[in-house]
């Protein structure tokens, strides 16, 4: 294991976090360009909305995987976790913005009704609102001010947020589709991993 993990860890130490920000922010204008020029099919609004939502879910999953990867595989990507979380919030924000402006054409009355009446939209909106305090406190100043323990406790909110996001995705479908169910299964699996002690703690790690 260490033969693979160590070089990745060494490489990760050298990569600055802004690379992750750029790597995930640049696709946003690219997808808008694709959508505007016919590259996302004849219904680009829905395609773009869905793409942004899916990337947000993927980022949430990556963010949730960082701790288990370190605990169980020795892979240390901790320094990227904040960037991943902030980027997930950005993608959710873009996803929501597309819904409000492009999909619903600013029909406020219909949107307001939908937020209360349609459970999948209610759930999506709750997940978005719950992300706001997390994004707002994703900086060193907030960690210092809140204290590391309280900060960590609050940021555990990301587990229910990710699960709500996956449920939101499942509920948009007309039938039980595999893809959204896989997202939810992966998220629940990552939650479950939190309760499995690390190899070091149990002393079963093989000598390598």
């Amino acid at each position, binding site marked *: 294991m260490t033969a693979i993990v160590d070089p990745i860890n060494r490489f990760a130490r050298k990569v600055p976090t802004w690379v992750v920000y750029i790597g995930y922010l640049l696709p946003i204008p690219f997808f*808008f360009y694709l*959508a*505007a020029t016919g590259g996302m*099919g*004849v*219904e*680009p*609004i*829905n395609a*773009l909305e869905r793409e942004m939502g899916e990337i947000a879910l993927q980022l949430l999953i990556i963010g949730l995987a960082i701790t288990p990867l370190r605990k169980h595989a020795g892979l240390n990507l901790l320094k990227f976790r904040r960037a991943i979380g902030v980027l997930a919030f950005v993608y959710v924000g873009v996803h929501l913005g597309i819904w409000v402006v*492009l*999909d*619903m*054409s600013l*029909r406020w009355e*219909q949107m307001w*009704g*939908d937020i209360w*009446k*349609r*459970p*999948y939209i209610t759930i999506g909106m709750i997940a978005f609102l719950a992300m706001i305090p997390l994004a707002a406190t994703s900086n060193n100043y907030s960690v210092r001010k809140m204290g590391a323990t309280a900060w960590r406790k609050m940021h555990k909110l990301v587990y229910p947020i990710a699960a709500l996001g996956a449920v939101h995705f499942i*509920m*948009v*479908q*007309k*039938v039980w*589709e595999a893809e959204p169910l896989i997202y939810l299964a992966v998220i629940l699996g990552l939650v479950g991993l939190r309760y499995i002690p690390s190899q070091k703690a149990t002393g079963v790690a093989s000598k390598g």
Partner: protein
Amino acid sequence: GALGGTVHAQETLEPNTLEEIRSYNNFYEFGTGKSDPAANAGDMVTDPWEVTVDGLVDNPGTYALQDLIGDLTVEERIYRFRCVEAWAMVIPWNGFELADLLNKVGVKEGATHVAFETAVIPEVMPGVRRRVIDFPYVEGLRLDEAMHPLTMMATGIYGEPMANQNGAPMRLVVPWKYGFKSIKSIVRITLTDEQPPATWNIINPREYGFYSNVNPQVDHPRWSQASHRVIGGGLFSAREDTLMFNGYPEVASLYDGMDLTVDY
């Protein structure tokens, strides 16, 4: 005929392009994604094609498609097409009135409904192999709905033979109902004296009623039906208001005395 519903709104209906009509489809036999039918339907062989007509008819039997419809008058009708998913297209169909076909096979006394069935060909239908829903896909109409002059059987679009993903070689078109009622690639037509089963109604009766008339006042439980977006307007295409009966008010008398919030 006078092109039915196109008369009062002829100027406002701008048809979608053939490319749009052929690239954005729901046809679960070929997959649940909007581009799946265009990608997967090409292997379905639609010539020769047989259609079984049975039940309460004078001339039941299994017909080669041409023998069944070859002598019917084909005309073009530009209809709005409103999907239950709150998107819409405008489609220039080529076809004939369903009533002409039903009169030809002879509807027997006592028939009240017409049932339809889509082909099931697992070898060329990946959605069927994956059993994404129960197949065959079935749909039905009340006999007076089926005989209404707006109701047609389409065999082409834009004067060209219908693409497989659009329901070749013959599909139903009921412009005042949500698109899923307009069943594709029909292999069976049954005249019956009871309300026939309808696939989406079986899957989720709360969300999809037997009638499924386009109705901006009756929401789908998971989304509003008050507005929709016409496909093809690009990234900044605005929603438009959905009209009662999809803008075909001449069918309203079919439902006199019915509560359409109950019989949705």
